[in-house]
């Protein structure tokens, strides 16, 4: 239909060959690095500044990239005072390679262990905050993680302040064997004591929250919030599939799936997380109301 355009262009090119100066090559522009980045999930390109400002959530597919504890604390708390930073892991079972592995993660992440705990201020509220670090040995819970959570819960009980824990974990830490599993009971007990005092524990499940962490303190929140798309489940999907010999639904173990099945109270996107937490804190200002 538009052949007449092509015909004309072809004719002009013949004429222009005789008259046109040699075409000078334009130098192809190289833009500086780091202006754009790619979403790790959908591959779409985003302006880096926009991505960071959006709390590392892809504007196109809403993929919530994992945050390290410092970043999480920064976007949640107005100020933060770290506690129990001096706790260090040892190798109680003499598990081969464990100390080396710990050392390499320390170098890689700059963190001492897989959890950061402390007291933070959120919108005027003093809150006991802990964040698990999925970049440190997959956020696995060993003695130090368990101890930090427990001590934090006890501190929160003593000061009668709300408790907020962001979980991200592959489960209990294999290298510490029964010591890791015992943390499940320990943290659960500390949280129970805390809960008996009528205080508020908000548990936020981020991607991924699995295994022994999920099966202990993470699922014990008074209110359980999950980030969109987060993987939340106890056993691995493949293991379940092989065991029950059935196909699993496509969004199995996603935050939305867990919401549907009643294991999670709400799915809150990162941009609204702080406001949601603040709202919950305000609604539960129990110390303001006396019971008599």
């Amino acid at each position, binding site marked *: *239909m*538009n052949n007449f*355009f092509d015909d004309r*262009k072809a004719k002009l090119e013949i004429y222009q060959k005789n008259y046109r100066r040699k*075409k*000078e*090559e*334009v*130098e*192809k*522009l190289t*833009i*500086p690095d780091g*202006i*754009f980045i790619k979403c790790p999930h959908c591959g779409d*390109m985003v*302006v880096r500044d926009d991505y960071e400002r959006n709390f590392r959530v892809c504007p196109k597919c809403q993929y919530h990239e994992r945050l390290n504890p410092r970043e999480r604390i920064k976007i949640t708390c107005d100020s933060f005072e770290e506690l129990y930073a001096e706790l260090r892991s040892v190798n109680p079972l003499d598990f081969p390679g464990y100390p080396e592995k710990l050392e390499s993660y320390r170098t890689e992440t700059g963190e001492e262990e897989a959890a950061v705990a402390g007291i933070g201020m959120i919108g005027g509220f003093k809150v006991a905050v802990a964040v698990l670090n999925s970049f440190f040995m997959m956020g696995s819970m060993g003695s130090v993680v368990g101890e930090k959570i427990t001590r934090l819960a006890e501190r929160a009980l003593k000061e009668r302040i709300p408790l907020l824990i962001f979980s991200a974990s592959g489960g209990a830490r294999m290298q510490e064997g029964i010591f890791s599993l015992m943390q499940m009971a320990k943290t659960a007990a500390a949280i129970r004591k805390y809960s008996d005092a009528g205080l508020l524990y908000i548990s936020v499940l981020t991607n991924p929250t699995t295994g022994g962490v999920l099966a202990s303190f993470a699922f014990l929140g008074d209110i359980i919030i999950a980030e969109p798309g987060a993987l939340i489940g106890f056993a691995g999907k493949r293991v379940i599939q092989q065991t029950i010999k059935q196909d699993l639904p496509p969004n199995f173990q996603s935050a939305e799936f867990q919401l549907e099945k009643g294991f999670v109270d709400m799915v809150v996107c990162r941009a609204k997380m702080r406001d949601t937490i603040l709202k919950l804190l305000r609604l539960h200002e129990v110390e303001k109301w006396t019971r008599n």
Partner: protein
Amino acid sequence: MMKKQNKILIANRGEIALRVIRACKELGIPCVAVYSKADQDSLHVKFADEAICIGEGRSAESYLNIKNVISAAIATGCNSIHPGYGFLAENEKFIELLERCGLTFIGPRSEVVRKFGDKALARRIAKEAGIPIVEGSEGIVRDLEEAKLVAARIGFPLMIKATAGGGGKGISVVRDCDELVKNFELTRMEAEANFGNPDVYLEKFIEKPRHIEIQFLADCFGNVVYFPERDCSVQRRNQKIIEESPSPFINEDLRRTLGEAAVRLVKATGYANAGTVEFIVDGEGRFYFLEVNARIQVEHPVTEELTGIDLVKEQIRIAYNDELSLKQEDIRIPGHALECRITAEDPLTFQPCPGPVKNLVLPGGPGVRIDTHLYNGYEVPPLYDSLLAKLVVFAPTRKEAIRKMRVALEQFIIDGVKNNIDILYLILHNTNFVRGIYDTGFMKSFMEILKGEL
């Protein structure tokens, strides 16, 4: 002057893309057209040196897709981008990104665009430059008491405007305190009912307003020139229909005052490239600052035909750090220029009417210019604005320009797509228009007369 070879990507479509292509080719600068899938048969694609597809038909996925536009520029080896008008032309994020990437933007710097894009800030800048602004409440007026205070400050008549309103809706005009009292709550209730938001603000009401704008050019060396005003009062729902230069209403003195005001504004903000300052002028010749359009505008051909200056070429030169090729003394008024915007709209309902152009007949002759992307067989897509063509005439006097325009409209045929050529023709015969006695209320009363006659 610049030895470096440049290549320009035109981040637009339709007639303006074609316009920029022409300027590039005349300057010997290779140019690249971008197009959405819906525009692959468009004229600008055919006539650019190269063309690259940047997305699906929807503007958000193509012409407004910043990533794709920038990627296209880099992939095709361009080092500059001309944004045309609309789309990304005044998008500060886009311009800032270009600056970071090292691409030359053919327009003002991002911080300047940002300043003028913020309506409140722009008004402050104008005020500081000694330019009168339309006084208003500077924000939402919450209750009648506050409204009375604002009224005492800015005086009557004034408008109660819904913040969530637009396109002329949600506005009440009150002329004294009694009317204000009667209408304040009522307007709030209507706003809530119509827009879901009861918030209103107050603004001085200008009687018999005329929309007068001053085109200017500024280079990076501090040189600024302003052009004779364009009168764009013939508009419907804030869409301009006819523009002319000079305005039949403005005299020498007011012209100079407006022009100098524009220059002050430009110098105060370090603006470089082309732009337009929009004013509202009332029946007594008092003028008020409205806003600055930090881009080349649809109606730029009016000024080009009047003064003989190629504004788009100047834009490109300024962007490449050339000095302005003209001085204020070079700008004269050798006659009168008039432009009609021809749109694919039902002449009476103004509903957009896309479709295939079956037969196209263009007018011509001395002083007749047509800027259009139409051709026989072209399918006007429904996804974008309805502008089909701009018909511009230049003649030694206004009377002759009007006559010339009438003849040109008679000889302009776009068969297959409903258009407003006939309405324009009738406007050109309207007594008030011919006398030059009209303000922004013109189209409303004209359409009423027209509907009455039919």
